[in-house]
């Protein structure tokens, strides 16, 4: 199996891929990049926090025009992962408003983004629909 690296340093690969945020030990604010002091409370101690891997889509857009080299269309969204807001694409579904809806339940999924000249794979993440809720929604 090819060697794999995460697309970003807050994505942890392995058996249970998940995101890790830096949590302020004082107020609980979570950050995906480094901070010298908490933007919320100014405290300076942080600890790693494993972000829940499922959540609810609270905002999205279907991007049809993007910078050169960015494949379109794609669904960009904001996912509320049990209280932690996460930015990511909605994947593994059709990128149209019939298949992507506000409030839909999604879970983290990883995929190979590309391979470098050493054969190393870059692995990214997105959020895919949790099928059961789709069934519920159509029944409801």
């Amino acid at each position, binding site marked *: 199996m090819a060697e794999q690296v995460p*697309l970003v340093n*807050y994505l942890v690969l392995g058996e249970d891929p998940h995101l890790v945020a830096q949590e302020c030990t004082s107020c609980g604010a979570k950050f995906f990049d480094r901070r010298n002091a908490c933007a919320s409370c100014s405290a300076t101690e942080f600890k790693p926090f494993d972000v829940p891997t499922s959540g609810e889509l609270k905002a999205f857009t279907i991007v049809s025009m993007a910078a*050169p080299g960015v494949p379109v269309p*794609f669904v960009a969204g904001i996912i509320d992962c049990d209280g932690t*807001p996460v930015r990511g694409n909605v994947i593994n579904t059709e990128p149209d408003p019939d298949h992507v809806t506000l409030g839909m339940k999604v879970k983290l999924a990883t995929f190979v*983004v590309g391979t470098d*000249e050493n054969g*190393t794979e870059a692995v990214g993440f997105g959020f895919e629909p949790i099928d059961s809720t789709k069934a519920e929604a159509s029944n409801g």
Partner: protein
Amino acid sequence: MADDVWILGIHMTKFGKHPDLDTVDLAAEAAMGALKDGGVTMKDMGVLAAGNLMAANAGIGQQLQKQIGQTGIPVFNVANACATGATALRTAIMAVKAGEADYGLAVGVEKLSGAGLLGGGGSPKKDGNVYEPKGRYGSVVPTDGRIGTDTMPGTFAQIGMEYGHKYGGTSFELFARISEKNHAHSTLNPLAAYSKRFTLEEIMGDIMIAYPNTRPMCSANCDGAAAAVVVSDAKLKTLDPDQRRRAVKVSASILTSDPWQDQCQILPDVNTLTKMAADQAYAQSGVSPEDLDLVELHDCFATAELVHYDNLRLCAEGEAVPFFESGATWRDGATPVNVSGGLESKGHPIAATGIANIWEVCHHLRGEAGDRQIEGAKVGLAHVIGLGSACGVHILEKAATN
């Protein structure tokens, strides 16, 4: 409380394509127009604040001085994203309010025709040949489009959709109808970059940029400049009756930045700082939202206009959809919004926008807005947002009769 500050003169260029004019030419046209409108010259000015976002390191203030008058006064070159013009104005107002100058000049200018999609980088970003973590997130390839979107249309689309998720009632069609209103308003504005009315079907059927924003639902890139001369209350009292009659009172001048909110690192929060600015502006002026005869707000996208009805307290919290559906924000409604045509049709030459919206309000308060005059307008509000973020809110009032 410091004495009032007044807008004495104000000018905006035609927004649109100006292939034969550079940024300095445009800034000079706006500045000379504002000085003439106020009946003053560069020699009277005690401070100059100027912005040109796309060349923020070029010193547009000093470039402008060389074009219209090098008098040695302090220059503040400002950059605050789409709030750059409002920031220049706020800077001039602060200097006058502080008693450091009797008169101040604020100028914003941008050349954006043909600039294309903003945000998300204008040139291709190449993936490396060997993966190596780079930047704050240790990314091995560019993340725009792979982890959400950096584009402005996509960002503001999500902001509108988030409001819809929280309060309900939004749809592609609803957002398109906001755009329909602003394009309809623009037909009365000879300085707008685009003054064509679109049907709802045309708007919804146009090229999709970032759902639910189609092309006419996005602000129009164009060239333009706007400038304003501000004056202290004490100095205004010494001026001619006609200057005093046309002067517009700055009842509130507020600038805020985005305070920490849980989600702000994921999706820029344009709501909290706008609410803060609006609340401060209403408190400073003693004006309440019901008093407003017109509002020019930052409709960089149709999805943005909706959330700012709520953020600017034009409606009760969560009520932006029924507020729009009541017809309140059309020019014959209770709270006309963007009677200029807004950024979607008037255009959005970034640094000029935060003074051009003041120009619009001033013209109605002076009774000089021509065919699109809101009859009897006495109080107006102008709002801009710059992502990053900065928010400017100004409340303006007609001069007491002399």
